[in-house]
C-alpha cells in the first residue's frame, strides 16, 4: 500500500507543479482591478505541491509496510469495470436502456451465482423499466440503439 501512496503523492505533486506552470504561462495573474483568472489556480498549485511533499516523505520513512493495495476481490472490481466500459462502448448498438440492463445482469453473473435465466429476465425487466420510467415518464432523451430503444 505504501508504494501506492508514494505514487499518489508524486502524482499530486506533479499535478500541483503542472497547475503552477499552466497558470503562470497561460492565465493572467492580475486583471484591471482585481486578481486575474490565474491568481487562485497559481496559489492552489503551490499549496498542492507543498502539501504533497509531507505525504511522500511520511510514506518513505514509514517502517510498517503492511496493508495490501490489491485483494482477491479487486479482480471482481476490474471485471465490473471492464463490463461497464465494454457496454458503454457498445451503447450505439444496444441503446442506453438495454445497455444499462446488460450491466445489471452482467454484474449479477460476475458477483453472484445467479442463473442465466434469471439474468435474462432481469435484462428484459430492467430495460423496459428504464425505457418507460426515465425515457417516457421523466422525458430524458436516452440514446437509442439498433433495436430502436
Amino acid at each position, binding site marked *: 500500500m505504501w508504494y501506492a501512496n508514494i505514487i499518489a503523492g508524486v502524482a499530486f505533486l506533479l499535478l500541483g507543479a503542472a497547475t503552477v506552470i499552466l497558470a503562470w504561462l497561460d492565465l493572467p495573474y492580475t486583471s484591471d482591478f482585481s486578481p486575474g483568472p490565474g491568481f487562485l489556480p497559481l496559489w492552489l498549485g503551490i499549496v498542492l505541491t507543498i502539501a504533497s511533499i509531507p*505525504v511522500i516523505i511520511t510514506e518513505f520513512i514509514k517502517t510498517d509496510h503492511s496493508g495490501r493495495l490489491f485483494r482477491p476481490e479487486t479482480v*471482481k472490481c476490474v471485471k465490473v469495470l471492464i463490463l461497464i466500459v465494454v457496454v458503454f462502448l457498445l*451503447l450505439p448498438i444496444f441503446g442506453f436502456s438495454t445497455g444499462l440492463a446488460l450491466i*445489471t445482469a452482467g*454484474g449479477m453473473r460476475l458477483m453472484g451465482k445467479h442463473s442465466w435465466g434469471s439474468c435474462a429476465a432481469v435484462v428484459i425487466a430492467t430495460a423496459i423499466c428504464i425505457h418507460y420510467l426515465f425515457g417516457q415518464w421523466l422525458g*430524458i432523451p436516452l440514446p437509442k440503439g439498433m433495436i430502436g430503444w
Partner: protein
Amino acid sequence: MDLLNNIYTGFTIALTGQNLLCCALGVLFGQLIGVLPGIGAPTAIALLLPLTFSFNPTSAIIMFAGIYYGVAYGGTITSILINVPGESSSVMTCVDGYAMAHKGRAGAALSIAAIGSFIAGTISIVLLMSFAPALARLALQFGPAEYFGLAIMAFGLLTVFGSGSPFKIIITTIIGILISTVGMDGVSGMPRFTFGVPHLLGGVDFVVVICGIFGLAEVFNCIEEPEGGVLVKDKFKLSDVFLTWQEWVDSRWAIIRGGIIGFLIGLVPAGGITTASFLAYMAEKKASKHPETFGKGEIAGVAAPESANNAASISGFAPLLALGVPGSATTAVMLAGFMMWGIRPGPLLFTSNPDLVWGLIASMYIGNVILLLMNIFLIPLFVALLRIPYSIMMGFIIIFASIGAYSVNNSMWDVWMMMGFGLFGYALKKLKYPIVPFILAMVLGRLVEQSLRQALILSAGSFSVFFTRPIAAFFILIALLAYCTPLIRFALRKAGYGKVDINIESL
C-alpha cells in the same frame, strides 16, 4: 408572533398533498437507504438530483431533507440487528445496540433509537426555527471578505473533525477547488484548464462528479470490501418494541443531552452527524453512574448517539439555509440542488423564499412523525430488505449514476466523466484520502474565488480587508487555529497526553 406566523405558513405548505407525498417518499427512501450498507444519503440524493429537474423546488428539497434525516434513522436498524452500521453516523449505535440484541432486546433498542431520534429531532427543529433566522440576520452583514473567511473556516474545520492525515485533507480540498476553476472564468470570460475541449467550457458539472464519486466509486468499494453480519433475529412482533419502565428512566436524559449535543455540532460547518453521535456517546458514558455497563447493552448507549445524529442532521440545515455554506457532503449535494433550481441559499433566502424555508422546516416535524411510526410498525419490512444481494443492488446504482450523469446535458461525455470521477473516488478511498473535503471544496470553490476577488476589488487589492473586518478576521483566525490543530495534537501526544482524536470515521 412572526415565528408563529412563519410556522403556520410552513405547515400550510408542508401539508399540501404533493409536499406531504414528497416528505413521505423522502423519509421512506431515506430509511431504505440507511438500512442498505454501501449507499449513503449523499449517494441517494446525488443519484436522484438529476431526476428532479422538473420538480417544484420546495417539494424536491422537502424530499431530499426527508432522505437525509431518514437515513440517520435507517442506519440504526443494521447497527442493532447485524452489527453493521448502515451509515457512519450509526457506528456508535453498534456498540450497545448489538449487545442489546444479543440479550433479546433488539426491539427495545430499535424502539428507543426511533423515540430518541424523534424527541431529539423535535428539539433540534424548535432550536433551528429560533436560531436560523437570527443567523440569517447576522449574515446580512456579511460581505465578500466574510464569505471568503467562512469558506476557509469550513475547510479548516475539516482538519479538526476529520480523521487521517491533515495533508491528505488539504490535498483533496485543493483538488476540489481546482476542479471548480475549470471552464470559463466568471469575471474575465477566459477559458481555464479546458485544453481545447468544448465540453469543458461550461466547467465540470457537480452532479456528474457526485454521481461518480458517490455512485460508481461506492460500487467498487463495496465489491472489494463486502460488509456482512449475522442477523440476530429475523422475525419481529409488535410486542418486541415496547420498553420497560426502567429503560425509559435510563434513557430520558441521554435523549435530551444527545439532542442538544447533536444540535450544537450540526451547526458547526463540517461538524457532521458522525462526530455528534460519537461525542454524545462519550458524554453519556462520562455522565453515567455506571460507565462500566456501556458496551454491554446499555440502553443509554443507544439513545444518546441516535438522538444526537438525528438532531445534528436537522441543525445541519442552519448553515446551509442561513449562510449558504454546507456543513457536510449531503448538504453540499443539496446546495448543488438549490443552484440547479436557481435558488441561492443564504441570509436572503428567508425573505426571498420564505415558502421554501418554512415549508422545509415544517416538513421536518411531519417527517419525524412518519419516521417514528414507520420505525415502530415497519421493522419487519426493513429487516427483509437486508436479504437483497449486493450483486443486484449494484446494477441499480450504476443505472442511476449513469442516467443521472447523462441527463445533465444529455451527453455521453458526462457519462465518461462520471466514470473517471468514479475511479478517482475509488482510488482516493483506497489510499485513505478523505472524500468529504473534496466535495465541499468543489461546491464552495466558486464562492471562494468569487468572494476573494470581489473583496480584493473593494479593497483596491489590499489583503488587509480580511483582517480589519472583525467577522472576517474571526473566521480566518478560527481557520488558522484549525489548520494548526494537527501540530497541537502532535505536541500534546509528545507531552504524554495520549492520542487526542475527536472523530473516528466521519470522513
